[in-house]
């Protein structure tokens, strides 16, 4: 793997609640190379967004608490960075777009006011834009996200735009300044399927044009399959499987990944599965060992005792499951 742009090592995050801690993230390891499209897939509450908020430095602390781990962005540990350095990282390094564009935009300011703010804020550090006016940069950003009539949209309030257009505005805000990494947290989930398709196509085009790396967070396996090169599967705060997208979908290994894939209704028909037995574990008192063991049909004694490490089964595939421990020896 060439040059890592983001490298998360053993990240463990707890949340303080009445009477104890919610042990949400459990030693998460995740890496993104320059220009790569990485998917992070998992069900609601598995810790996808918490991981990314930790990266952005927007995890509310308290109640959140980073217990251990390191997050390297371009080789620097962001967890020990000064405030000014984090600020700079957000200006020129990483951007994030969120699931709900309506909540992400301020309803009482026009698109222009919000976009100008972002552009001005970061202008001091970027030479390439300095000769252009704030408005020109903003219009260019809106053109980049294929919004028609950008001059008019600058004067619109978010509520005058449709959901798809709002999400495009959010993307424009994120990429108004060139960035190295874009974190897209369920960018199409609140939109219709035809609009989601447009938004994901747009993100893909921008990533290629601007040579940006993308982390696409989604609960939809279909979205991940179509728009990423490499995937991390997350369950209850741990990465359970990592592989190239092609390999993962043709040869899923972890019992959780397999069960999840069985649950997806197929266009080709074939009925429905019965779902995964049990429910997502309680983070207050998570299961010992592998957190999937209470729901796993193939669990054995070792699974109860110790958290499985990631075992490498081939060049591009790693899985955190004792069923595959021979593969490593």
């Amino acid at each position, binding site marked *: 793997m060439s040059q890592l742009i983001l490298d998360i090592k053993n990240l463990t995050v707890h949340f303080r609640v009445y009477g104890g801690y919610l042990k949400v993230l459990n030693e998460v390891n995740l890496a993104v190379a320059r220009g790569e499209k990485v998917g992070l897939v998992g069900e609601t509450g598995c810790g996808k967004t918490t991981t990314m908020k930790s990266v952005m430095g927007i995890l509310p602390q308290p109640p959140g608490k980073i217990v251990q781990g390191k997050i390297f962005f371009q080789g620097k540990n962001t967890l020990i960075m000064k405030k000014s350095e984090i600020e700079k990282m957000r200006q020129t390094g990483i951007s994030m777009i969120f699931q709900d564009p309506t909540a992400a935009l301020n309803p009482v300011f026009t698109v222009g006011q919000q976009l100008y703010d972002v552009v001005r804020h970061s202008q001091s550090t970027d030479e390439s834009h300095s000769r252009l006016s704030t408005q020109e940069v903003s219009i260019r950003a809106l053109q980049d996200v294929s919004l028609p009539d950008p001059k008019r949209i600058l004067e619109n309030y978010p509520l005058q735009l449709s959901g798809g257009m709002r999400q495009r505005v959010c993307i424009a805000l994120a990429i108004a300044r060139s960035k190295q990494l874009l974190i897209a947290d369920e960018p199409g989930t609140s939109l219709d399927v035809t*609009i989601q398709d447009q938004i994901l196509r747009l993100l893909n085009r921008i990533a290629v044009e601007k040579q940006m790396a993308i982390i696409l967070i989604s609960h939809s396996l279909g979205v991940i399959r179509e728009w990423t090169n490499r995937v991390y599967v997350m369950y209850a705060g741990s990465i359970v499987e990592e592989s190239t997208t092609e390999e993962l979908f043709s040869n899923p290994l972890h019992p959780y990944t397999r069960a999840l894939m069985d649950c997806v209704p197929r266009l080709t*028909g074939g009925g429905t599965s019965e*779902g995964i037995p049990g429910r997502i574990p309680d983070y207050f008192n998570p299961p010992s060992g592998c957190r999937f063991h209470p729901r796993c049909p193939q669990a054995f004694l070792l699974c109860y005792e110790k958290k499985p490490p990631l075992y490498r089964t081939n060049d591009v595939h790693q899985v955190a499951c004792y069923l595959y421990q021979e593969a490593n020896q």
Partner: protein
Amino acid sequence: MNPVLEVKNLKKYFSTSKGVVRAVNDVSFSIAPGETLGLVGESGSGKSTVAYTVMGLYQPSGGHILFQGQDIAISHQKRKRVLKKELQIVFQDPGSSLNPRQTIEKILTLPLRLHTMDDNKNIKKIAEKVQNILSLVELPVEYMEKYPRSLGGGEKQMVAIARALATNPSLIVLDEPTSALDVSIQAKIIHKLIEIQQEKNLGYLFITHDLSLMRNIAHRVAIMYLGRIVEMAPAQQFFETPYHPYTRMLISSIPVVSSEEEKLKPGKIPSIGEIPSPVNLPPGCVFHPRCTNRLPICDKEEPKDFEIKTGHWVKCHLWSSNNN
């Protein structure tokens, strides 16, 4: 077999400050006992309005709703209690459709007390019935004492389904019952719904935006766009040969998880444009501004329903003009 529900030329208009919104415009369909009709559309297509009008939450602006042959196009207040017993609904968000201050037992007791005429005073018998309903949706009896907030999203939806089943209805309207839930929980609920349907010969009007889900559970699928049903066909035929350009765009946009499914997509038709405001509908065919196969006639005249194969209806000039 006589249909349990027949909707004929249903119209529902809302007047707003910006003009009249034609949310449902001339929609017709029928559902037989034991059949699932999947009503699929994007947000703003009018699918939920159809559901609410059938339930009597809205009074239709025109057309007929025949339930077991009897016209019920009247408001909820005027409907007889016997009718309400036969028609039940499950909403999308169980968090807001269950009363947070009532226990599960109380939530399930109410429909039983209202609709079982003979022994509605017999507390013991009702408690027994509540237990039966809970076991029908595979929830433990202890849940009777619990409040909705202590249940997971999937379990709450199971309670909502149990409440709909309590009165022993013959038709259930399912308004996106699983779209707020994860796939693993969705699979569980869908599995249960199918089991119950087969057991009780229930008719389902399944409102959703998820086409791949419909492929697996619907007997027939109807696609709505801006208040109209643009295509309706038996599920298998529908996915093998979709005719309407909108349907094709929709199927092409679905992210899928295997290459076999990829092959089913009718070419990669890029999705363009957005659903227009229902206040200012485009003239002619409402889909023409987004259509890739537009004909000169499309922005002038609205196409009529055309039966292209037995039971396969499509509303598009591309197909009707070729055959006229």
